[in-house]
């Protein structure tokens, strides 16, 4: 009874949709998580933005599939997971950024992504009241969107249960051993066997990898985010301000399906480690930048804030695929803050890896997510 085809370690943004997809394909799946319910680590910290407009084939195709899953969920299964096709925008306030964005657009267009350049006037219609001083225009990708991480993961969780996936919560994996042609996964509460293992442990991926001798260059760093009271919809897309600030890199915000403005900032220098306690510096830093960029936000009341981690790889691309030394151990780690948007697409890709049914496209994707790549490249506009 403790024998499984696959054990997924981590019931988060990647683990849960993966379990759903595996179980849907009749693969006997167990998910083990240290928390008490799904999504209690960094999934619930995600602000919910979902975009396909990345800069490489892998992320683009995985996210495109994610968007399909998110956006058709309600229609297919009935439950609202808060998806809205509100789009993404990167306004430019200087020539250099405008050029960077326009260059990237060329690559994105070559992947058939729907992204266009809006003039200042067009952008002001989309985000009324945003600071027009120095505004040169903005990218706009209308098919990107946003979704509630909380609702989505629970929808995936219940669907995965329906398909037969099993979960063990409040269990910490303490050892992974080889037992004949199987793995023996030992937790603080029990022992489980499986043919294959998927490491989807987010911020704890490195520790899990070490248990099988797989060194993973995944290091979490801390980001803080917050949410406002709900308001009648007053602007359209996710707004990403890519300019650096005094003690921060970029920050971004959007209005979710409830009407609440959700925002997050990237500290500079980055704060490494895992520490989810809130600090006093976050609000003054992010609030000032947001109010300067979008003055009418001054009147919106902020309701709650939280702190979470981006499990970062050196180049900002995930690490997905089999570990050569132990091929039945599969990595799905280093999402670098994009686990929520990549998760559903990755779940299906991981299922194909487990079943050895990867497509041509999958193999191309896996190349950019390869553990054995040169990590010196850098993801554009993380």
């Amino acid at each position, binding site marked *: 009874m403790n024998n499984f085809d696959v054990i997924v370690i981590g019931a988060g943004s990647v683990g849960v949709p993966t379990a759903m997809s595996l179980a849907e394909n009749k693969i006997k799946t167990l998910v083990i998580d240290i928390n008490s319910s799904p999504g209690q680590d960094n999934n619930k910290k995600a602000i919910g933005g979902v975009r396909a407009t990345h800069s490489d084939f892998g992320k683009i195709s995985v996210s495109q599939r994610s968007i399909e899953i998110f956006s058709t969920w309600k229609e297919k299964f009935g439950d609202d997971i808060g998806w809205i096709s509100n789009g993404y925008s990167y306004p430019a306030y200087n020539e250099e950024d405008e050029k960077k964005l326009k260059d990237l657009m060329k690559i994105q267009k070559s992947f058939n992504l729907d992204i266009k350049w809006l003039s200042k006037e067009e952008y002001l219609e989309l985000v009324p009241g945003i600071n027009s001083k120095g505004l040169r225009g903005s990218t706009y990708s209308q098919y990107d969107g946003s979704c509630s991480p909380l*609702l989505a993961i629970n929808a995936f969780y219940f669907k995965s249960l329906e398909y037969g996936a099993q979960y063990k919560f409040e269990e910490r994996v303490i050892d992974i051993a080889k037992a004949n042609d199987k793995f023996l996964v030992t937790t603080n509460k029990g022992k489980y066997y499986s043919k294959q293992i998927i490491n989807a442990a987010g911020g704890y991926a490195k520790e899990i990898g070490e248990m099988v001798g797989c060194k993973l260059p995944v290091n979490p760093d801390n980001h803080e985010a917050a949410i406002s*009271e709900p308001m*009648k919809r007053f602007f359209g897309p996710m707004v990403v301000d890519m300019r650096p600030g005094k003690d921060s890199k970029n920050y971004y915000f959007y209005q979710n399906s409830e009407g609440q403005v959700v925002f997050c900032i990237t500290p500079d220098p980055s704060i490494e480690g895992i520490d989810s*306690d809130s600090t006093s510096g976050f609000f*003054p830093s992010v609030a000032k930048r947001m109010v300067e960029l979008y003055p009418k*936000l*001054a009147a919106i*009341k902020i309701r709650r804030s939280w702190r979470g981690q981006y499990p970062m790889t050196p180049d900002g691309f995930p690490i997905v695929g089999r570990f050569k030394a132990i091929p039945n151990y599969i990595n799905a780690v280093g999402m670098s803050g994009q686990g929520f948007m990549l998760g559903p697409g990755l779940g299906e890709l991981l299922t194909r890896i487990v079943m050895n049914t990867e497509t041509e496209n999958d193999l191309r994707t896996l190349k950019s997510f390869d553990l054995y790549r040169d990590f010196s490249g850098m993801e554009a506009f993380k």
Partner: protein
Amino acid sequence: MDTFRLTTHPILPVEDKNKVTFYWENKPLKAVKGEKIASALFANGIKIFGHHEKDNSAQGIFCANGQCSKCTVIANGVPVKSCMTAVKENMIVMPAEGLPELPDVEKEPVLEDIESIKTDVLIIGGGPAGLSASLQIAENNIKSIILDDKEKLGGKLVLQTHKFFGSVEDSYAGTRGIEIGELLANKVNENSNIDVWTESTAIFVFKDKKVGVFSKGKYKIIEPKVILNAAGAREKFLRFPGNTLAGIYGAGAFQTLVNRDLIKASERLFIVGGGNVGLIAGYHALQAGIEVVGLIEAMPKCGGYKVHADKLKRFGVPIYTSHTIVSANGEESVDSVTIGQIDDKFNLIPGTEKSFKCDTILIAVGLESVKEFTDEAEKAGMNIFSAGDAEAIAEASSAMFNGKIVGLKIAKFLGAEINDVPESWYEKAQILKKHPGEISKLEYPKDEKGIMPIINCIQEIPCNPCSTVCPVNAIQMQGDPITGKPVYTGGCIGCGLCVVTCPGLAITLSDYRKDADNPIVKIPYEIGNIIVNIGDKVDCVDIDGNFIDKFEVVNIEKNKKKLTQIVSVKADKENVKKIVAFKVQADEISKPLDNPIIPTKMKDDAMVCLCERVTAGEIRKLIKEGIYDLNQIKAITRAGMGPCGAKTCDNLIKQIFREEGISTIVDNTRRPLYVEVPLGVLAGKEGGENE
């Protein structure tokens, strides 16, 4: 017009105040200058402030304390909490119908750097505990900042029109709460070691040992060496069908409207909960000329002091013990309440339902400590103390004494060269915290001559001012000097000080001096809205409110200092000692409707999360599916994600878990902010609620 204001009050001064004009839905209305929008609306008879975007349910006052957002209105285009925002001349106030619109702005805001202030001690809460502690700390030349979210220091003391219990020596017993509040506030305001920050709310204790404070429209950061959490308590809410109608709120909100803002918040009030909070709220309502239809208590007897309960019964307010609220009935606002008797397992006994017409239902079913500052400060590794209700729920008299002890402890902790807190203080603190004890038999003095006090105080409670004020020491505490039973030992001179001082209005004088056959009973009276005149025949009642007979009022004296009248009634020999009061509220007021209104809604239709509109049934369904992590319940239902931050629903959800027999649950993760703050304020812009 603004006719729902108190025009007289037996205790509180009702002055003519400057009025300003404001507009509600474009109609001009009058408000008292500087009062909160919520109070101005209530004064004009407006109790529905808008409708919820999720289910169009009527929204209005709930906490009156800036903690929830149920009272949101649109003031000059900006959504604000009406209970915390002062009305201004020509302000245009609109109901919040559905989601509000974020107003456009003309110009870029001017942003200043956030000020950071260091201090020795940060005291969160300027109520009885915080004020007492601050004085002790200041006495040792230690600097402190005391925060309070209201305009005036005093906390809930400023709402208490009744005389306080406790001991005279330690906690101003016999003096009214409002007077104690003022007394302490004056001392604190005059003290140069104490920096008083009113209209200032602590919004979080961050892990870098800094406290964010929303102060008079500005965001500031305080770095203290020590935090004292004296933030008090919050009221628990209750699940029942109709619990979300406008006109259902806590006793604290009610006292704020009535006793602070002198608003006649209700015409006919029903109270749920027989603890001291509910009982006293009933008394305050009577003082304000509000009809109190009844009070229910689920237990077989009231948890509050017997003298408080007796006082209400004697004035004609029925107290139904072993009763529960079945439903609140009405379209948008409360029209009536249905109650019913419960068995020893707290199950409703069918057929016992009764309904009463009322416009307001007060929920006074207990308090819970505001612990979050303590929890966060501990997590951040700060030096944290707590005092008063934030530490343990007790009477304000206890909070004051406990604050004094903690103040001394903090001074010592910070290096003041003082002795340890004396052991006797701890003992006294325990006594002042004591729950009411056993009830003994009522015994009268045998004498039928001269004058003597009849002490209708037969339950052990921490209260002794009668023994302290008597100039001839004719009243002695039997047993403990504070909680013991007061006994008349002879030698009364008839000065009446005990009568006007007793917080329970439980002492009368039997005066045989003029006419031993028709002795006079001198009764304390402070329901000034119901005027009693010489020559009136009043319905005299015994300790429990049972009718004795009609007797004539022969004299009325008013003690200027104590504000309690002494009404002399000419009784007879047989009854003079038994008479404790006379009924002021007619029986018709408490008459149930001919047929009870049985709710069509199910018990599980009761709202659990008022902010996000989540019912008990939705929560129960998830619990039955095996979910035990409150975070997951929150993720799925949004219960706890609203503006109040699970302050109301947390308890109610845990109750449902208990009902389902599940004891192992995972608590909600607490996050900043404890109250909502405008983004602009956090950015360094002046403004906010009062903008």
